[in-house]
């Protein structure tokens, strides 16, 4: 008798039919569990720059999220929900940043956005969040107006990154002090010829002159962004013979400038101040780092000198195989803010609820100058992070003697600046 083909009441089930039945039963009863588990995952989207000349910054921001999420998930997730990162490459293009952010929210089911874009892309993401009001933390843009200009305010968008005006005040204070001590009167600048380079240089000079009015800017050179060769700018500096110079060059451009300047022994006779030199990938890429160059803090495993900061650097290096970048610590901090906000809402992810929790939140952090970093409620930006300047030394971590400006003074001058700009 062919048991497999028989049917009807009283039929005998064959081995294959039993197996099929078991498989079907497992599918019916098991899949809902799997589907339920997938629904519990809390997806957080991240547009960032993963290709092109500044890809190392985007990949470092991604590694920082991976480290933070691993730690949060190992501790049980948020209300039992593990966090999952969904990252998309914007290639550094604002239009692409806006597009992938919309996709992350609308198609990929992301309930929160970590914006790992440079300023140009961050403004585009900001406008998407105005339309699709999930919680968004900008973790890389330093352009002050993003959070300072009330016309740009978005209720569910926050900045978890250093801010240009804070750095300008601190840089001005530091440079003016050195200029006074060493009699550096004749200054020159060499910065990339685009909006950030010019704005950053103007703000640095504005505050340096404010604190030390005797300094004089004798010349300024503006090499192109991503210029491969700086010889004509360097020889111009040699001709002008300034006592000090400021540069807003960054990344590979700054590496090339310093290596080419070394050939002329440029830094032996000029006091050099840089806003971007302190980023570890820049410091490690330079083969012959001259000692005594002055740089703004971007990240350093020894500053703030806390065990938790060193632990972060070690954990990050295990994932990325290099020291953390400025984008990395800022993004890691953003993850900590998000986790805390989610805990306080009991896992609710509505943008308005999370934003209400995040406003004015103070968070103990390994990166805090004192004990905590605060997400200021008035303009949704962080304060209390390291805004320090230090000097280069030949050995890792390459910068030491950090001088932190007083946050009270920074906030006071920031308020004046906001008033002058019509932001307050």
């Amino acid at each position, binding site marked *: 008798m062919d048991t497999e083909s028989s049917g009807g009441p009283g039929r005998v089930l064959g081995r294959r039919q039993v197996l099929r039945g078991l498989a079907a039963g497992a599918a019916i009863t098991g899949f809902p569990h799997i589907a339920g588990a997938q629904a519990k995952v809390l997806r957080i989207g991240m547009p960032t720059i993963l290709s092109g000349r500044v890809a190392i910054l985007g990949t470092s921001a991604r590694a920082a999220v991976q480290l933070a999420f691993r730690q949060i998930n190992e501790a049980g997730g948020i209300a039992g929900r593990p966090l999952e990162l969904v990252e998309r490459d914007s290639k550094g293009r604002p239009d692409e940043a806006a597009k992938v952010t919309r996709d992350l929210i609308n198609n990929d089911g992301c309930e929160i956005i970590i914006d790992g874009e440079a300023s140009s892309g961050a403004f585009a993401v900001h406008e998407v969040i105005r339309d699709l009001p999930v919680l968004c933390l900008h973790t890389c843009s330093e352009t002050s107006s993003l959070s300072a200009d009330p016309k740009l305010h978005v209720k569910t968008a926050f900045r978890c990154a250093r801010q240009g005006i804070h750095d300008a005040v601190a840089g001005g204070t530091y440079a003016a002090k050195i200029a006074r001590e060493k009699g550096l009167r004749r200054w020159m600048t060499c910065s990339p010829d685009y909006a950030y380079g010019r704005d950053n240089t103007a703000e640095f000079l504005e505050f340096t002159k404010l604190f030390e009015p005797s300094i004089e800017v004798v010349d300024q050179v503006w090499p192109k962004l991503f210029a491969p060769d700086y010889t004509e700018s360097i020889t111009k500096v040699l001709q002008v013979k300034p006592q000090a110079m400021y540069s807003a060059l960054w990344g590979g451009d700054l590496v090339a400038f310093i290596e080419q300047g070394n050939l002329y022994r440029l830094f032996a006779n000029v006091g050099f101040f840089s806003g971007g030199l302190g980023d570890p990938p820049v410091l490690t*890429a330079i*083969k012959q780092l001259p000692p005594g160059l002055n740089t703004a803090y971007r990240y350093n495993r020894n500053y703030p000198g806390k065990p938790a900061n060193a632990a972060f650097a070690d954990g990050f290096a295990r994932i990325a195989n290099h020291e953390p970048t400025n984008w990395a610590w800022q993004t890691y901090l953003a993850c900590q803010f998000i986790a805390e906000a989610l805990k306080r809402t009991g896992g609710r992810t509505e943008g308005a609820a999370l934003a209400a929790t995040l406003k004015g939140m103070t968070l103990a952090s390994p990166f805090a100058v004192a004990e905590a970093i605060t997400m200021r409620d008035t303009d949704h930006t962080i304060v209390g992070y390291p805004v320090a300047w230090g000097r280069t030394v030949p050995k890792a971590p390459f910068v030491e003697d950090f001088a932190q400006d007083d946050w009270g003074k920074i906030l006071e001058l920031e308020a004046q600046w906001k008033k002058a700009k019509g932001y307050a």
Partner: protein
Amino acid sequence: MNLEALAACVASASCAVTQVSTGLIVGTLLFLVAAGLSLIFGVLGVINFAHGAFYMLGAYFAFSAYTLTGSFLAALAAGALGVAAVGVAFERLIMSRVYGRDLLMQLLVCYAVILILDDGVKILYGGEYRLMGMPEAFAAPPVEVAGGFIPAYYLFMVGMALAAGLALWLGINRTRTGKIVRALAINPQMVGALGINTTLLYAGVFGLGSLLAGVAGALAAPIRTLTPGMGLSILIESFIVTVIGGMGSIAGAFLAALLIGFTRAFGAIGFPLFVDGTMFAIMALVLMLKPSGLLGREAA
């Protein structure tokens, strides 16, 4: 515009020396790349839009060799010969299939190769910037000449570029092979009819042009940051040089490269905000007054 500063610089020996050396530094590296581009166009009649990517490969090959061996000579050899081999393979396997096709087809093929090479470099070396570092032999203070300063490495770089240019000129104008290559540029059918292997010659010329780009990349590696796509900016300047000098003219490329180098060096003193504008203005002027370029052959 600060013409007073420019006049003062020209009148000062130290400033003039420093800026003339700057012009030579900028110009000679540009010449190496443009000479390869011009040679390939002059003989094969194709514009190698992927030439900038070959410059990038030269820099990365040199970086790898220097990292492995610590020898700058090995780095130079790897940059030059490695790119020459890539150039020959590119000519035989890809470009030879689009000879005689319209310019758009050649452009598309080259653009595809640029993307492939850029992505290949990204996969092999990563997307971040890299620096080879200055060889120990050149870690000396800059040489002082009449109060101006010239770094030792730049003296070597300019010397190498000039030697390569001179060897190329002698090779083309004073050797039998050079005569055949010149004949190939004018009448390839006749050269073929004489029993000379023109396919081999085409590949050789393409390899030589690529080698020059590789040498330029290897010479740039100790002083410039290496990134995928780094060939684009030098390709644009090389086109300016070849247009000004005359497509296909090695001597024209040399003259135009120096012109661009000196414009940038002295422009930084006298008209820093219009240096790029001046370069393009010179190109426009040449195109209006002598469309074949300063030393290019007039069309028959």
